[in-house]
């Protein structure tokens, strides 16, 4: 597929050449300017090399074991428990982020308070912090020497905490710019026509925000199911209790079971894809209704 696309973009760069120019004008399908054609070509080459190639390698490796490979990998109760834990926790954390992230974005855009700029900068820190360092910090905070009296280390709660920490910025940062662009005139108009605050939020603001929230949620979920560094220390990796998928994959690799590792990884890719598609559908529905 990628080869076909890149091929097409090379053709679009063609109209600049003397012969191709006239014949091509009769087929109005291609509306790309030469500059845009180069841009698209570059994007596709880059995307193919960096993303499609490794992804297909993973799927190919997993497929080398056939369908039975997937079956046997998922049939292992330890692996299945890890998948369940990871997916449930990622969903929970994504839901939390949808609410809290939107509220934080709102506060940052609409309200004025002391320390706002600082908060705006600090939001990104979980992005920048190496995840292993994040794990260390969280262990210090929620371990047995917890200065705040929360001893959640080595429990499933620890997984929630670590995931919430590293995925928080996604929704805040996707919702924030949309909220900034949002025209308050419309809200004032609605208010002058007698709409209550909840109604304005539900009918005017939320529909504009939903696409941003959905794409933030997709990023947040995808990041959560693949997270390793921040929770590997904090969760304790106990089989069937706090062991997440990425640790299972690591065990497979340590034992030389590369196709099992690839199979499990591609199952997680599929789940991520599924959630992203569902979120996209939700977003389209809401956008149409709004």
């Amino acid at each position, binding site marked *: 597929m990628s080869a076909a696309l890149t091929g097409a973009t090379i053709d679009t760069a063609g109209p600049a050449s003397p012969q191709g120019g006239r014949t091509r004008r009769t087929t109005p399908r291609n509306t790309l300017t030469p500059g845009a054609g180069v841009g698209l070509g570059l994007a596709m080459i880059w995307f193919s090399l960096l993303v499609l190639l490794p992804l297909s390698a993973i799927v190919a490796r997993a497929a080398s074991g056939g369908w039975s490979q997937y079956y046997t990998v998922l049939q*292992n109760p*330890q692996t299945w428990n890890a998948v369940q834990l990871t997916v449930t926790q990622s969903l929970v954390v994504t839901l939390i982020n949808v609410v809290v992230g939107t509220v934080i974005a709102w506060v940052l855009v609409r309200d004025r308070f002391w320390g706002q700029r600082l908060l705006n900068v600090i939001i990104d820190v979980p992005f920048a912090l190496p995840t292993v360092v994040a794990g260390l910090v969280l262990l210090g905070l929620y*371990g047995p020497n917890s200065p705040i009296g929360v001893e959640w280390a080595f429990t499933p709660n620890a997984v929630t905490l670590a995931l919430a920490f590293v995925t928080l910025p996604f929704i805040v940062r996707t919702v924030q710019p949309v909220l900034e662009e949002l025209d308050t005139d419309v809200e004032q108009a609605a208010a002058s026509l007698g709409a209550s605050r909840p109604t304005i939020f539900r009918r005017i603001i939320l529909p504009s925000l939903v696409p941003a929230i959905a794409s933030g949620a997709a990023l947040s979920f995808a990041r959560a199911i693949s997270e390793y560094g921040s929770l590997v220390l904090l969760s*304790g990796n106990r089989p069937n209790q706090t*062991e997440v998928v990425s640790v299972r994959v690591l065990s*497979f690799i*340590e034992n030389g*079971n590369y196709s*099992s590792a690839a199979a499990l990884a591609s199952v997680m890719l599929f789940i991520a894809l599924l959630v992203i598609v569902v979120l996209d559908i939700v977003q389209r529905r809401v956008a149409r209704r709004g």
Partner: protein
Amino acid sequence: MQIRSRAALAAALVGALALSACSSADGSGSGDDGTALRLSGFSILEAANEGIFEDFQGTDEGADVTFEPSYGASGDQSRAVADGSEADIVHFSLETDITRLVDADLVADDWKDNETKGIATSSVVVFVVRKGNPENIQTWDDLVKPGVEVITPNPGSSGSARWNILAAWAHATGGTDDEATGREFITQLLGNIIALPASGREATTAFTDGSGDVLLSYENEAILAKQNGADLDYVVPDDTLLIENPAAVTVDAPQAAKDFLTFLTGPEAQADYAAFGFRPVVDGVEIPEVEGANDPADPFPTPGTLYTIDDNFGGWGEAADKYFGSGEEGDPLGIITELQQQTGQEGES
């Protein structure tokens, strides 16, 4: 404005491409003067090796040699070499990591045919405890008492953690093949384990951070941690397992690599290693004062019973599958893997 940003993006992409092309160009090992030896080792060696490199450069064979070491988790290092990362000398925590290279035809079959049977450093499994040993942990049986919280690296993901579990197994069975007793003891032990961090380093971090009563670790790790100021004690149990870390040269390695390997197991290098808590693998080593050891003047007390992988487990070739086989892709299901799968199934936490 949109067009300008697109141009900027394109420029950035081209720049990144150019950079990545550059980085793949270096990485060849040989310098202009003398020989550069590429050493791939497991993490804990880093501190000790600095001094050993200098000592080797002081010898006739090593005068012109420079070193390009790389350190990391033993399994990762081994897989990297197997997948094409070039190395002249490999020094890993576990024999199976070298076996992987033998299978890939990167290390000769007869790598164990020397005085130390391929072993370059050794240690024993110990209990790291809180300062003053408040729980009074002395024996393996103390680890399975109710309420004692144990931390050990995950034998699934950390190859080196396998020494710890096998030490417990050796204690329970007395080094015999009494599998039922072994299973029972390991099940009890797994019940007391509160965390299985992915690597030895992370396990130590979790412990020094305040989690758990006992950390299963190596004597040299415990000594190094105390040298670095960690506030803890360690106990050498009366019966424990000898940890043996193998080293080998790769098939294309220059003569200097072979000389260095010989030097590694000589008295001078072994004394250097001893200063960092490793037990000598040859006799006649003058052991220095080892700071951080329980008794710096007599740093390596002889345990009452010292089990070995060769005598009590039939060597790693046999033990790796029997105890740690993953049960995936036609591999046998190892005993420890099976017991691990059963822990926590009842939802008790």
